[in-house]
């Protein structure tokens, strides 16, 4: 436990003394802000153009949570997928390049403790990213009112959406950590995990227009499809299992990759 904490502290120290985490946060803040203002704008135009007679029923069913916040969270997902490889790339690869791997591997630390320490530090950085996104619904709740004067933002739905984003990010970090453990070049690690994660994100486009098992398979594999339920306020077991199995597999494989050094 002591050594896990030491590794977490060291990783966070490096994350926050080098620009990489700040760049990731900036990318996240910039694009989230774009999507947020864009969605609010679309919503406003839509509401003002609605005629008072026919629009009444439609407006009853529209709410800011579904139209603005869920759309925002859905769009931000792709930036989590893109930024995670850059946050995870140096976790192990840089240790190998800088030869500090020798220090870590000759310390009285189990490979799994190294994996857990590095992974938890990466999750902490991910949480900051998601907290930046969470600032937008909070902002919205200050200025918006619901249909009958109630709160404009349904916090339960926002909460599940953020949970979904976190699980998506946790999956990306686990995959990135494993790829980083295989390479001793940070660039190669970043590119390979980016290809894998983007591939999983957009896998359904390969089966557009087709039907049957192939399409079902693509939908089942897609990390974007599994986010949908969370954005609509549903926590479904299959989605949770999907993300967590990537996390478990990624961590286990990383542990094996490090342990494999001892057998090489």
């Amino acid at each position, binding site marked *: 436990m*002591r*050594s896990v*904490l*030491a*590794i977490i*502290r*060291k990783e966070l*120290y*490096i994350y926050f*003394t*080098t620009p990489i985490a700040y760049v990731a946060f900036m990318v996240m803040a910039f694009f989230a802000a774009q999507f947020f203002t864009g969605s609010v704008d679309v919503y406003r135009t839509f509401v003002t153009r609605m005629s008072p007679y026919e629009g009444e029923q439609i407006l009853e069913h529209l709410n800011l949570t579904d139209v603005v916040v869920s759309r925002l969270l859905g769009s931000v997902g792709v930036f989590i997928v893109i930024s995670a490889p850059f946050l995870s790339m140096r976790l192990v690869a840089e240790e190998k390049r*800088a*030869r*500090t*791997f*020798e*220090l*870590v*591997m*000759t*310390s*009285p*630390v*189990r490979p799994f403790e190294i994996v857990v320490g590095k992974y938890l530090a990466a999750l902490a950085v991910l949480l900051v990213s998601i907290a930046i996104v969470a600032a937008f619904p909070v902002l919205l709740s200050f200025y918006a009112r619901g249909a009958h004067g109630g709160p404009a933002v349904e916090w339960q739905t926002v909460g599940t959406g953020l949970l979904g984003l976190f699980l998506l990010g946790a999956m990306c970090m686990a995959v990135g950590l494993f790829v980083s453990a295989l390479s001793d070049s940070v660039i190669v690690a970043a590119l390979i995990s980016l290809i894998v994660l983007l591939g999983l994100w957009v896998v359904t486009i390969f089966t557009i227009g087709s039907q049957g098992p192939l399409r079902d398979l693509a939908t089942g594999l897609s990390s974007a499809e599994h986010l949908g339920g969370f954005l609509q306020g549903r926590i479904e077991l299959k989605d949770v299992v999907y993300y967590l199995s990537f996390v478990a597999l990624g961590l286990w494989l990383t542990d094996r990759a490090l342990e494999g*050094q*001892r*057998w*090489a």
Partner: protein
Amino acid sequence: MIEVTHLTKRFRDRVAVDDLSFTVEKGEVIGFLGPNGAGKSTTMRVLTGFIPASAGTVRVAGFDVFEEPLEVKRRVGYLPEHPPVYPDMTPRAYLAFCAGLKRLARSRVKGEIERVAHLAGIENVIDRVTGTLSKGYLQRVGLAQALLGDPEVLVLDEPTVGLDPLQIREVRELVKSLAGKHTIILSTHILPEVAMTCQKVLVIHAGKLVDFDTLDGLIAKHLPGRKVTLEDIAFLEEIYSKLVSPVGPGLAAALPVAASGGN
């Protein structure tokens, strides 16, 4: 303290260490001597559990490096060939991290950092960013890391590389002062260093043990009848060149002493 028996390490078809056997008693200081690529660093890496042996066993303090790596790693302080430092950290943060890895009690950490910083002579740079330090300081930060926690065994891979003559003397004094309490293996290709700091010398050439003896034993064996004092270090160069300079492995193997160094 350290028992190496029939250690062999192969990298694909290249044999880096070939059937190496030796024993180091508690409190001894052993000089690892050999030309570049002789297998010094490889042996040290196996000894510290960084890479596995292809064959043979290594035991430190009675624990097999491969079977019980954590027990061994807890007892060994290791300075690798390249100082394993993080350029973005300060030496203080770095040593605190190493103390955590070595599971030192929290209350001890601060005092330990002060102690090893003093021993390695890095007190004046301890709050600077490591990436801006000179090679000599990097080496000393690495050395401080190895001393952290006062481990029973110290494995130092070329500890004086990159240091200026004065610092080299300091490190030698340091190693000498640690002798007796600690078991130390240090590799070098600077011969005076061995004469000044080590009680026993282990000469390794092309992965094979060529000779392992005390300095006096080496003198008696290879320069019989010659009177030498430790200040006169030229004798060591002579012995060393006798042992390793015949580049053909046949010649080295033909030396009568090659077999006698087994234990």
